[in-house]
């Protein structure tokens, strides 16, 4: 089976079959990481450009390692958005890169919709590595792989996502993906961080973090930033931690075998208690490991792999 699309822009438009294909492909790639020679020739002769307009260590490294394990040639292009206004437009930059015939462009951009605009204008495949507060498909897919590993599937699972939903692309992609696969999603956070109309995406907005966590299979904590641009969304880190942070006491409300996830980078002691972050039920580092496998699968599939 193969993927009939050149781009991975978001979870919103992926079908159940496509998600399963990506997860299965990633599953198959996983053992490469444990081999002595961590390399397969699948993408030999392919060029992958990592075009990052926002600071990112984890995601960019993960994509780079994924491409290299598949034997692709990788180029990292880090552009600062501030210089964009002065010189070249985003489109011109991308067209210049396109002229060098890459096969895939992995793009991270602060503007929601930037990868979508790009995908319509260029021939190479586009993988969205995070666009504004919109989507972060590879993150959601690696989260889903983690959950599938733990629970064997998604049907009937209860997942709580807690934090700044309004500004979270991770939340949106997970909401689309998990619900498409049959899980139920509850969200919680300060009222200032719950965007208007979010329930239209199918989620339940819990009145408190306790309500959100009660009886769930998965707790997904989001990184918190109290100030966005000039807006102040919450009083203090301390207050946030008291009202919305995940601690041992709140963890008890979840199912006994519930797992804890966090897309990183963590603010230890704010949204998550330092001890809880490292406890047995935490899967935070496993997520990172899965990330490489998911990104290998995405690169492989958008370049026609599986055909």
């Amino acid at each position, binding site marked *: 089976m193969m993927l009939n699309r050149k781009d991975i822009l978001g979870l*919103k438009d992926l079908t159940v079959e496509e998600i399963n294909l990506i997860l299965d492909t990633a599953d198959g790639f996983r053992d490469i990481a444990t081999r002595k020679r961590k390399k397969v020739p699948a993408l030999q002769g392919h060029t992958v450009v990592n075009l990052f307009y926002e600071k990112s260590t984890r995601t960019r490294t993960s994509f780079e390692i994924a491409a290299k394990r598949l034997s692709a040639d990788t180029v990292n292009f880090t552009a600062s958005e501030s210089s964009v*206004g002065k010189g070249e*437009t*985003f*489109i011109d930059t991308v067209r210049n890169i396109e002229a060098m015939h890459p096969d895939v462009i992995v793009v991270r*951009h*602060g*503007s*929601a*919709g*930037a990868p*979508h*605009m790009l995908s319509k204008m260029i021939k190479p495949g586009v993988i969205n590595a995070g*666009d*504004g*507060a*919109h*989507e972060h498909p590879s993150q959601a897919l690696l989260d889903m792989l983690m959950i599938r590993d733990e629970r064997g599937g998604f049907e009937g699972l209860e997942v709580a996502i807690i934090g700044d939903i*309004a500004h979270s*692309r991770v939340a*949106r992609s997970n909401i689309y993906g998990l619900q498409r696969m049959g899980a139920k999603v509850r969200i919680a956070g300060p009222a200032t961080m719950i*965007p*208007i*109309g*979010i329930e*239209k*995406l199918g989620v339940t907005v819990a009145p408190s973090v306790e309500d959100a966590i009660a009886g769930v299979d998965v707790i997904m904590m989001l990184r918190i930033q109290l100030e966005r*641009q*000039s*807006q102040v969304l919450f009083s203090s880190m301390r207050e946030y931690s008291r009202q919305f942070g995940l601690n041992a006491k709140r963890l008890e409300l979840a199912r006994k075998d519930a797992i804890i996830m966090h897309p990183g980078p963590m603010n230890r002691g704010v949204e998550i208690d330092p001890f809880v972050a490292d406890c047995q039920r935490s899967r935070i580092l496993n997520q990172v490991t899965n990330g490489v496998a998911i990104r290998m699968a995405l690169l492989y599939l958008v370049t026609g792999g599986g055909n």
Partner: protein
Amino acid sequence: MKTLIAGGKVIDPSQGLEGDFDILIDGKVIAKIDKPGKIKLDGKGKTIDARGCIVAPGLVDMHVHLREPGYEGKETIATGSEAAVAGGFTSLACMANTNPINDKQTVTGYILAKAREARCKVFPIGACTVALEGLKIADMGEMKEAGVVGFSDDGKTVMNAELQRRIFELAQQLNMPVLVHAEDEHLAADGQMHEGAVSTELGLDGRPAVAEEIMVSRDIMLARTTGCRVHIQHVSSAGSLELIRWAKTKKLPVTCEVTPHHLTLTDENIGDYDTNCKMAPPLRSAEDRKALIKALADGTIDAIATDHAPHGILLKMIEFDKAAFGIIGLETALALTLRLVDETKLTLMRAIEALTVAPARILGLDVGTLQVGKAADVCIFQPDKTFVYTPERIRSKSKNSPFINWELPGAVRYTMVDGKVVYTG
């Protein structure tokens, strides 16, 4: 020079006229209106065949951005007026956010000098505050003497209520209207579109309806306090309409306008980040749109105005949150309004009123009428003839429109300014 417009159906809301009439134009003015065939030219002058057409007063757009001086790459007074007459408009009121800003009589004078070469009449609007900064009141008196017909900081909201009160008091004394862009800048902040389920889905910051409603309510109360004629520009939310309705029942000197795009599109039209659907105030929900149409029909909304805002592709073919706000509208306004008439949501009489005499009265302009003795500004269009709004036919210098390639009704056949045909379609 005499011109006879013969065989058309005349609609002139300024005198409640609707029916088959011929119109005689003598020189620059309307000379006679009579039953079909009654007026004879006796070989002198020409006849315009208006059979199958509506003959209306030339349209009046009380809200355009002509970008000159300062942004001639986007539009000039000349190109903007070309677009205007192609859309049936014969009078435009242009906003002050040029460069330099029209906050003094020298700039007003420059605009009026350029306007002499325009295809249609151009009436400048002066800034309320110096440099549109919302800090210091501009010299409104000298601008009035130079020829502005109203004051506005359009594009920005005077956030200081005390300053707004002083502006209203001084404008009232000058007997001039103040046109307000009502959006609380703190609430609208960095919002890119209407705040709602669609902005949540797209991950874009929202401009909530309450940002507009708060400023509409503030300015209504200040109109009551000062007696100033306050005109709310581009109303977009159902909540604002409730406030304006209240103001009108209290007989306060408050009027408002709506744009064709707010009557036609909703936030859903942004779809896959279409920057040609980005403007301020933003396209709102389907419920808001429905309320706007109803309010236009019942007269709560006085006028239709385009907020014609040309931007080049450098500001539109970019990331959504970096793209400029605004779209062009002069060449689609009549057609989009006629769509509502076709859908029977609006009478043709009311539609033409909102595009002619209503905005003319708000600005105190002696246009937008076919009364005998008045300037012969005429718009002749064929309601059942459609056209496709292709990029090639756009006369504006900029092509930032969400209606490109739409098939639209009501092709303009002739536009006349002061008795002279300035556009033939």
